[in-house]
């Protein structure tokens, strides 16, 4: 059993909803990025997601676009991202999931990327522009290296497509709660919550929800039906608005603790 499944199973045993915060690698700078990541454990994170910046992040809204561009302008690459993660190795408590658009992975070399990711302590991979129809090779390489390939499932997917994605996903099923890009404002209507319930019924894997969760109240709403919540743009936005990187770690910790409180309702 991969460490992602173990962690989520432990959460379920303890009736705890999982919290998955997201950071863009190297944002706002390498040092602060690492401090934020190291602090996530204290802040109540169960797993962490790290995004490798890409020049053309199609699934991302303006907040993560700007963070990606900033990180790229400051020299962030796949190799440096993996180097930063390697520097955490050993003591770091939460499983790490890498998010990368396909082209940087392709340029690095798929096999090499997965090898190096694994030796940097990565347990899961999300490729937002990879559809399952094209995913066989990535699935195979990930499987051979003990990394979970996590597909995104959109609300617009037909029931057949939904079942395919559930079947192909490893670790957990990543539900995209909004019709749109990351960071979009949304209210979690009864129909969205029903959809999450339906996926849960169809899936033997845990179900985590991301895209558009920005407040503790939203996190609470979603966590009533999902196994975990993924929070990205709201964190990046907070870092950006804090300005002073020295203060960002504390502000993000406070914010994540509020989210934690929201999802520890029962």
């Amino acid at each position: 059993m991969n460490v992602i499944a173990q962690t989520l199973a432990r959460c379920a045993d303890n009736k705890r909803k999982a919290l998955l915060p997201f950071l863009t690698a190297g944002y706002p700078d390498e040092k602060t990025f690492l401090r934020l990541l190291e602090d996530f454990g204290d802040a109540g994170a169960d797993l962490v997601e790290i995004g490798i910046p890409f020049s053309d992040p199609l699934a991302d809204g303006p907040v993560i676009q700007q963070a990606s561009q900033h990180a790229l302008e400051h020299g962030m690459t796949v190799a440096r991202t993996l180097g930063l993660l390697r520097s955490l190795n050993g003591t770091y408590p939460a499983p790490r999931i890498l998010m990368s658009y396909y082209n940087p992975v392709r340029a690095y070399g798929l096999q090499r990327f997965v090898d190096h990711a694994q030796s940097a302590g990565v347990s899961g991979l999300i490729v937002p522009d990879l559809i399952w129809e094209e995913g066989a090779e990535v699935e195979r390489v990930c499987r051979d290296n003990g990394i979970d390939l996590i597909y995104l499932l959109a609300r617009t997917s037909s029931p057949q497509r939904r079942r395919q994605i559930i079947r192909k996903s490893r670790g957990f099923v990543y539900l995209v709660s909004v019709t749109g890009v990351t960071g979009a404002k949304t209210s979690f209507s009864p129909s969205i919550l029903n959809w999450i319930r339906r996926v849960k019924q169809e899936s033997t894997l845990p179900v985590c929800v991301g895209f558009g969760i920005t407040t503790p109240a939203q996190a609470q709403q979603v966590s009533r039906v999902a196994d975990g919540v993924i929070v990205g743009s709201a964190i990046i936005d907070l870092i950006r608005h804090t300005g002073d990187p020295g203060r960002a770690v504390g502000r993000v910790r406070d914010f994540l603790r509020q989210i934690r409180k929201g999802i520890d309702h029962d």
Partner: protein
Amino acid sequence: MSALQELDGEYRRARRDRGFTSELRELMETYAGRPTPLFFARRLTHKHRGARILLKREDLAHTGAHKINNCLGQALLARRMGKKRIIAETGAGQHGVAVATVASLFGFACTVYMGEEDIIRQAPNVARMRLLNAEVVAVNAGSRTLKDATNQAIRDWVTNVESTHYIIGSVVGPHPYPLLVRDFQAIIGRETRAQVQRRFKQLPDAVVACVGGGSNAIGMFHRFIADTSVRLVGVESAGKGLHTHLHAATLKKGSPGVLHGSLSYLLQDRHGQVRPTHSVAAGLDYPGVGPEHSFLKDNGRVQYETATDAAALRAFVELTETEGIIPALESSFALAYAGKLAPQLQASALIVVNLSGRGDKDLANPQVQQAVEQAAHQRRKNAASGTR
């Protein structure tokens, strides 16, 4: 992904539907003004002292470029799918104008994404789109050109996919776009082939078209693929030179990569980040290229060449002076290469250049204004020396 499957299914059904094909044919004739003429450019031919140069006059199609062919086809598909709103990206603004035009024709709401830099250099087309009641949204991310406008259009589409159809302007993007855009543009090559045969009782020796994303080129080439005696040449923008990074020569200098949902040649750095591009022609200023062009490069059927900004600007002025036709800057890259090719071929040979659009839109571009000034200066000098 579901929307792409819906579009793919709808297109497959429409292709077999007489009602669809006959409505499209009628619109092409009565609205777009097809067939467009094939013009023998006598004075241009004389100047280059070589093969006869023929111009496929897509600049005379409604809205001033070949883009209308694709927009009419996709608008009919959008109506079949019950969409109320259409969106698009645009570089030179020719596609944006064509989309805004069909939106008026069919009564769709319309939003066009355009890079901030292109909004400045293609100002006349921005005014046309606004007059046509389209919302023009300035994109200030990244390089502020066509690539970033495409990113933003895709983000809009995934957000509003229920109500909205995305009319991609070139043979790029995820399947089925490269296929259906090619099919709607293939009328260019079908007409050209018949026109050349009717008038000259032979096939052309060479067919030349500019390549950005590659829609006018693939539309022109498609019918000629099986005619192996016909040399097919796609011309990319070498910008300020292939030795610099300031070009958009994707097929010449790029490597395989994934952008906007397809695997094709791509201008990228060694980390897989997409490179900024440069071309004086906004419509060629794109780091990717249609996947079918990558295929045609790899199998050798099409030869891909380049022309610099400077050569294209000279060709722009030259066609205006010799034939009274102001070509689009994009098409000027094809003209520049044809001018080089003509003297290498026999006088009996035929070269067809796809004149994909007209150049009125480019007159606000400072580099064009400079080229026009220089040409006027040269004419005055020539006239003065002639009287002595």
